[in-house]
């Protein structure tokens, strides 16, 4: 549905490439029809610029942007305006017109497209039902809560029956509970309308709850991409790990870290993180290790979670015992398709 190739964007510097600020470089992305694709990064990573390049609110300095088979960068003004009607967009600060009621805000894109009044009424009313705001139709945005404003934003973005929905930090101004309700609305819309959704966010939780696939952006480049499950359970890039740490709490308390840095590590204990996914999550792992290999295992931290409906767990253990037995145990763990990572303290 969306194919981005070798996209770059730099600002300023005039003709001299030297002083230009490089916002994006060498971006290649392919988003399939009907999927929810996440773009995550720290602030300043270029994610908002990237999503604005998809509907050409920002014109890329180089590269190609194809949406539904159409090369957007090659379109003239009028063609581009027509193409934009196929791409809905919602924003962090909602960007609703304060001078218009809820109904008139949702009607705006239809007015702009020259749809007649009867048709507008026929199309806006079901959209307000869809986002649960039928009762609020005559209110002004100032009278709504943040979550309701974003619902108006979503209804407005859907008015032209787009094939793609761009969400630029759509939940970043909302509290956690409202965020969840907006995410479930987006998920619902994606399923019901078969809409392709691009979600830009700095919150890993949003990616985890909503997206099918994710690209991690760092300093204007895609440093990692894949299915959300893969990226969460096996992050490769340091930025990704840092972002995931916010959601999947793997930080140990400082006091514990201090104690671990002390004596018994030198006496042969090994600090390991065991990551198990799917069926392995159900196996009685610890008792097998204890009985079969005669090891002592001290569980320091553990958690189990579900990502895209698949269970995923991680355990931080201190393993003590005879060195050969420990190696055997680790080989056995790998056989059980459990990922074993040595953790270094300090």
């Amino acid at each position: 549905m969306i194919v981005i190739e070798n996209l770059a964007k730099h600002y300023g510097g005039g003709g001299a490439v030297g002083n230009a600020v490089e916002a994006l470089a060498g971006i290649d992305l392919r988003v399939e029809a009907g999927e929810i694709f996440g773009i995550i990064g720290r602030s300043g990573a270029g994610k908002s610029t990237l999503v604005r390049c998809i509907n050409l609110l920002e014109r890329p300095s180089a590269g190609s942007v194809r949406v539904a088979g159409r090369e957007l960068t090659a379109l003239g003004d009028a063609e581009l305006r027509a193409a934009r009607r196929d791409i809905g967009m919602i924003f962090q600060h909602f960007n609703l017109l304060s001078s218009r009621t809820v109904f008139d805000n949702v009607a705006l894109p239809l007015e702009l497209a020259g749809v007649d009044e009867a048709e507008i009424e026929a199309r806006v009313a079901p959209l307000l039902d869809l986002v649960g705001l039928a009762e609020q139709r005559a209110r002004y945005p100032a009278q709504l809560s943040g979550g309701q404003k974003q619902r108006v934003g979503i209804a407005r973005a859907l008015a032209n029956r787009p094939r793609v929905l761009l969400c630029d930090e759509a939940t970043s101004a909302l509290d956690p509970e409202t965020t969840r309700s907006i995410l479930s609305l987006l998920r619902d819309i994606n399923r019901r309308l078969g809409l392709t959704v691009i979600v830009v966010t700095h919150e890993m939780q949003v990616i985890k709850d909503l997206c099918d696939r994710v690209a991690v952006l760092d300093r204007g480049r895609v440093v990692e991409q894949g299915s959300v499950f893969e990226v969460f359970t096996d992050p490769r890039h340091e930025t990704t790990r840092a972002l995931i740490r916010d959601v999947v709490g793997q930080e140990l308390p400082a006091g514990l870290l201090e104690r671990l840095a002390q004596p018994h590590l030198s006496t042969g204990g090994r600090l390991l993180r065991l990551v198990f996914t799917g069926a392995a999550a159900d196996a009685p792992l610890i008792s097998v290790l204890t009985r079969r290999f005669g090891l002592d295992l001290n569980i320091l931290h553990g958690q189990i979670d579900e990502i895209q409906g698949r269970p995923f767990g991680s355990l931080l253990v201190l393993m003590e015992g005879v060195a050969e037995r420990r190696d055997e145990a680790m080989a056995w763990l790998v056989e059980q398709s459990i990922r074993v990572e040595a953790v270094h303290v300090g």
Partner: protein
Amino acid sequence: MSAELLTLFWDSFVETLIMVGAAGGLATVLGIPLGLILTVTGPGHILPRPVFNRSLGLLVNALRSTPFIILMVAIIPLTRLLAGTSIGTGAAIVPLTLAAIPFVGRLVEASLREVDAGLIEAVEAMGATPLQIVRKVLIPEALPGIVNGLTIMLVSLIGYSAMAGAVGGGGLGDLGIRYGYQRFMPDVMAMVVVVLIVFVQIVQSLGDHLSRALDHR
């Protein structure tokens, strides 16, 4: 106060109304488009035209920095061309309008600039043309501010119209100077001031009221 003086008072009030009303109306009609052009051709806006924008800005500043009393006599040839005469209430409307247009232009520009860039971006993302952005977003969103600006302009015009006596424009200000000051009639002067204060209060309250009614923020 004699009946004769009262008639004089009433006539002067009507002259002020005519001057402020006509100049205010014309300045609104011409000043709003000026403000729009100043805004949209500005840097980073929807139709940036840097050279044109700067030239227009200079012209506006030049008009605004000319003291009204000087502007009034300086443009007498233009006044004669447009009003057919260079003296009287009708003639005074020309310089009043010319002074008010750039004033309205800047006030409207200031209101339009307050419209959140995010709103413009949102409608651009919907495929809006520049004209649609102006009609559907910029003007409706800035309307409360524009109404405030027009109120300020009307109040300023009431003040300027007091100088219209210099070209025989009449009005309350002129009455105050000729009778109150030159003929030593302090009661006339006081009356003029009181009427002007009440007039300005009414205009300001109406403007505030309308602006609030339009504001849904």
